[in-house]
C-alpha cells in the first residue's frame, strides 16, 4: 500500500469573509506518505484552505477532519515575532512541546543553522528564520508536515535542495506533506497529487514524469531533477474577476456568479 491512513481531509469546505467568497466547496485530503502540492494564483485561497485544514480557522460550511492526536509540523508563509521578548534561536525551539537539548542541536545542524543557536531570533536573516521554522516543525516529529510557500525567496538551486530534503523526510519518516507552492507550473518532482486552486478546485492530477530531455536538463541544470512540470487540465476559464465560464462557451457573454 503506497499511502497510509488519511491524516487530514476537507470536504466541501467553503469560506466567505465580509461578503467575499474565498473558498467554494473545496475537497482536499492528505494521507500518510502522500505528498500534496497545492498551487494557484495569489489570492486564490491557498493559505486560507491550509489554515482551515489545520483548524486555525473555521469554514463557513463543509467539514474538516483530522486524525485524533495528529502530530503536525507547520511552517507558515509569514511569521512575525514581536521584538519585546528576548529569545535566542535555540530558546525559540525550546518552546516547542517536544525535544530536549540534544534534539534541538540535531535539528539545527540538520538545517545547517547551528551557528545561529545563540542569536536573537528577531535578528537572524529571512532565510535563516525560514530554516529555523523548519527545524521547529521537525522537532514535533510530525506525522503531517504543512508548508506554506517554503521556497519563497529562494533561488532555483536552493529550491532543489529544499525539495530534496522534503522528499527525503517523507521517505524516512513516512509523514504526509502538504506543500503550498507559489509557482503555477513547476512543482516538486516527488509530488503525488497536485491540486490547482482558484477559490475552487480547478483541476487535480500528477506532475509530468521528470523529463530527461537533454535540452530540459541544460536549461535547468541538475537541479531540475527535483522540479517537474504540471500540465493543467481545466474545463473552464476564469475572467478577470475570477468568475468561471465553461471553456467551450464562446457565445455566452454573461457571468455565472459562483
Amino acid at each position, binding site marked *: 500500500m503506497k499511502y497510509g491512513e488519511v491524516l487530514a481531509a476537507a470536504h466541501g469546505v467553503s469560506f466567505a469573509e465580509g461578503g467575499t467568497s474565498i473558498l467554494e466547496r473545496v475537497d482536499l485530503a492528505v494521507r500518510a506518505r502522500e505528498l500534496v502540492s497545492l498551487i494557484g494564483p495569489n489570492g486564490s485561497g491557498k493559505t486560507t484552505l491550509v*489554515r482551515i485544514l*489545520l483548524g486555525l480557522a473555521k469554514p463557513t460550511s463543509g467539514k474538516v477532519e483530522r486524525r485524533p492526536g495528529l502530530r503536525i509540523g*507547520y511552517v507558515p508563509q509569514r511569521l512575525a515575532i*514581536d521584538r519585546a521578548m528576548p*529569545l535566542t534561536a535555540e530558546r525559540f525551539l525550546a*518552546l516547542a*512541546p517536544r525535544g530536549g537539548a540534544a534534539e534541538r542541536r540535531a535539528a539545527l545542524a540538520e538545517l545547517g543553522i547551528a551557528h545561529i543557536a545563540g542569536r*536573537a531570533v528577531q535578528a537572524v536573516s529571512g532565510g535563516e528564520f525560514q530554516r529555523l521554522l523548519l527545524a521547529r516543525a521537525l522537532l514535533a516529529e510530525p506525522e503531517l508536515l504543512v508548508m506554506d510557500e517554503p521556497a519563497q525567496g529562494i533561488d532555483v538551486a536552493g529550491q532543489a535542495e529544499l525539495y530534496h530534503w522534503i522528499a527525503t523526510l517523507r521517505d524516512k519518516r513516512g509523514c504526509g506533506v502538504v506543500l503550498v507552492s507559489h509557482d503555477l507550473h513547476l512543482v516538486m518532482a516527488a509530488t503525488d497529487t497536485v491540486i490547482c486552486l482558484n477559490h475552487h478546485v480547478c483541476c487535480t492530477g500528477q506532475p509530468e514524469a521528470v523529463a530527461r530531455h537533454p535540452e530540459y536538463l541544460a536549461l535547468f541544470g541538475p537541479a531540475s531533477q527535483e522540479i517537474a512540470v504540471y500540465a493543467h487540465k481545466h474545463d473552464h476559464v476564469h475572467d478577470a474577476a475570477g468568475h468561471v465560464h465553461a471553456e467551450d462557451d464562446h457565445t455566452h457573454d454573461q457571468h455565472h456568479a459562483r
Partner: protein
Amino acid sequence: MDDFLIRALLAGLGVAVVAGPYGCFVLWRRMAYFGETLAHTSLFGVALGFFFEVDVILGMIVAVALAALVLGFAQRDKRIGSDAILGILASLTLAAGIIVVSAAGTVRLDLFAFLFGDILAVRIVDLYAIYGAAAAALAALAWFWRKMLAATLHDELARIDGVRVDAINLLLMLLLALVIAVSGRMVGILLVVALLVIPAATARRFAKTPEQMAFMAALAGALAVAGGLWGSFRWDIPTGPSMVVAAGLFCILAWMVPRRRAA
C-alpha cells in the same frame, strides 16, 4: 527601623517579586492599557464592595475578573479597536467608582489612599494576603511557563503544538487581575501599572532570555520599592509615587547604558 517601615518594605518586596514576571507578560503581550483598565475597575469593585457590604478585596477581584471577561468578548467585534474599548472601560469604571465612593461618604473610604496607595498602613494580616496571593500567582506562572510563553509568542504555532491557547490566555488574564488587585493597595490604582511595566522595561535592556527578564524585572522592582521607601522617609513625600519615580529613574538609567552590540 520602625515596625511599620519593615512591614511596608516586606509588602513592597512581595509585590515586586510577583509584579516583575507578570509585568514581563504585560510588555510581551502589549497589555499595558489592559492593565490600566483592570486597575481602574478595581476601584469600582471596592466601591461596590462597600455598597453591598461585602469584603472589599472580594469586590475588587470580582469586578476585575468581570472586566477581564467583558474585554475578552468586546474585543471580538473589530469595529471598535481594542485600545478604544479599553479607554472606554477604564474611564467608565473609574468615574463610576468615584461616584459610588463619594456617595458612600469619605469617612468610610480614603479615596486618596486608594488612588495613590497606602503602603505605610499595611498590617501583618495584609502581609499574609500579599504573600499568599504572590505565591499562588508565581506557582501558577511556573507551572504553565512554557505554554504561556508559547501562546504569547505566536498564537497559531502554539495551537498547532497542542497548547490550549484560549484557556491559557484566560488564566493569564485572571492571574494578572489578581496581581493588580493585590499591588493596587501599595501604590494605588492610578500607578499600579507602573510597577508592572517599568521594572520589566528596565529588565528588557539587559535580558537575553525570557527567564532572565522575569528575574531582572523582579530585582528592578525590589530596588524601586526600597529606593522609593527610603526617598519617602528621607524627604517626606508620598510613598507610592516615590516608588514609581525610583522605578522610572532606574529604567532611564538602564537604557542610557550604551550598547556594545545589538541586543
